[in-house]
């Protein structure tokens, strides 16, 4: 298994898709900055009024809109390139099962997703230090890290849908389209049926987790009501388990070429 993982890492060497990782980490922070700059308050007041909670929550909010799209494209690239480059013909003729290859690819995707969230935290810290005079309390930072870890898990469960689409269509266009749908899924975020829409789940859970902190978190102002997290959870479990099982069956048993 170690060798398969090393091979998967080597395949990504000099790969431009890796740019998605720093981009995925940076874009939510840049969107947060836009919101910050758009605020009416003067820059001096802003540095005192806007606390760390503001930066962390807004970044988290945007991260959960943009990151699922980035992850869908990343996972799509890792799976579909084997079909598009015809390397699948040799990849499936080694003396180990297709499931080991699937597992290795998923491990790589999960590592890259985690790195993206870590970069989001890192960039938020950098910009936060530049923009606010308030002190960052250890509890606030810990809460933020904890929520990000929870969001990695939510996104891991969601990624199977992107993987399924990728291996079914065998073309990078499909996960790109899915990524775009994820971003536009944001449009229905405030609707009651959003708990049934996979593209909204990441944002809904981010909102829910933030609300559980019991502090004044500005991200909550976007929502009139808290999401029905129980239904959202059921949707998440159904979408991820159905996608996962379909992925396993299709990847393991389907004909190549």
């Amino acid at each position, binding site marked *: 298994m170690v060798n398969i993982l090393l091979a998967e890492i080597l395949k990504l060497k000099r790969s431009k898709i890796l740019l998605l990782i720093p981009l995925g980490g940076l874009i939510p922070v840049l969107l947060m900055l836009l919101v910050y700059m758009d605020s009416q308050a003067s820059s001096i007041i802003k540095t005192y009024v806007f606390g760390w909670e503001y930066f962390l929550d807004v970044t988290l909010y945007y991260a959960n809109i943009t990151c699922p799209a980035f992850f869908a494209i990343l996972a799509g690239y890792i799976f579909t390139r084997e079909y598009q480059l015809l390397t699948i013909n040799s990849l*499936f003729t080694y*003396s180990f099962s297709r499931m080991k290859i699937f597992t290795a690819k998923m491990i790589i995707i999960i590592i890259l997703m985690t790195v993206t969230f870590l970069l989001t935290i890192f960039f938020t810290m950098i910009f936060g230090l530049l923009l606010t005079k308030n002190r960052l309390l250890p509890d606030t930072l810990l809460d933020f890290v904890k929520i990000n870890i929870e969001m990695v898990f939510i996104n891991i469960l969601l990624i199977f849908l992107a993987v399924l689409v990728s291996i079914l269509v065998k073309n990078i266009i499909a996960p790109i389209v899915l990524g775009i749908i994820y971003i536009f899924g944001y449009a229905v975020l405030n609707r009651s049926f959003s708990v049934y829409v996979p593209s909204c789940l990441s944002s809904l859970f981010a909102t829910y987790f933030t609300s559980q902190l019991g502090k004044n978190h500005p991200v909550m102002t976007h929502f009139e009501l808290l999401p029905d997290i129980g239904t959202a959870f059921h949707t998440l479990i159904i979408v991820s388990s159905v996608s996962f099982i379909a992925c396993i069956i299709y990847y393991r048993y389907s*004909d190549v*070429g």
Partner: protein
Amino acid sequence: MEYVLRTHDLVKKYDNKIVVDHLNLNVKKGEIYGFIGKNGAGKSTSIKMILGLIKPLEGTIEIFGETIKPRQYKHYERIGSIVDVAGFYPNLTAIENLEIHRLLMGIPDKKCINSCIEVVGLNKETSKKVKDYSLGMKQRLGIARALLYQPELLILDEPTNGLDPVGMKEIRELILRLSKRSQMTIFLSTHILSEVQQISSTIGIIHKGVLIEEICFEDFQKKNSQFIQLKVVNDRMAAYVLEKELNIIDYSVVEPGVIRIYDVIEDTSYLNRKLIENGIDFKESVTMKNSLEDYFVNLTGGEING
């Protein structure tokens, strides 16, 4: 007789259309088996079934004397293959691509990479990324990958696809060298008949999914003995003279004005003289040998492609 690869009544259908129909291949140890057929005859599908990339609808595959069961992978360690066009990661160099293969094969020694690169003559191109390689270079790299762990069975699906005549000759020579040097069994699929004729010890001809002939090269040569081809103005008159004056009965008029004489003629000058004496005008009289191409066309009843 020891067989490295055998298939028993292999069947594959796509959308109710039979692509491979009860295929029975018998590949002997150490031989070069030429698997020929037109484009779309079922060659690649057969190879993909042998390699486990697609599942047969019916039939069994026997590799190294063992019937392959679903999700059995051990035998792949002893097989090297190129299916369709050899696929590589374009962002990586040749060595990095082979390193991936080495890792996946679990070969501990990295030296094998350089020696295989050398065998296929790519040692001066190792720093180039594969995206800058020509099709011929990629095909050679594909063979290097297939050879990395000295397989006992090498399966090559159209290895000279897209190569110029020099490249084709190089690959042919490489295949011959490998077969002689390491007693490797080579299963070579192609639609280029001359390629197979020059190097194969057994020939399998597939047409519309059916293996219509499996013949060893000696038998093929016996079947395709020499003949004399005459191009005459009046083939009826010429046929009359052949039968009545020269007692030749084993001949055929292959097309208007073209006669092939299969009887053994010791003195062709006597034949020519007799024809002239009997007033037969002929444009050409040459001794020829049936090519694999003729044989193939006779069997499949059509033109070859490619």
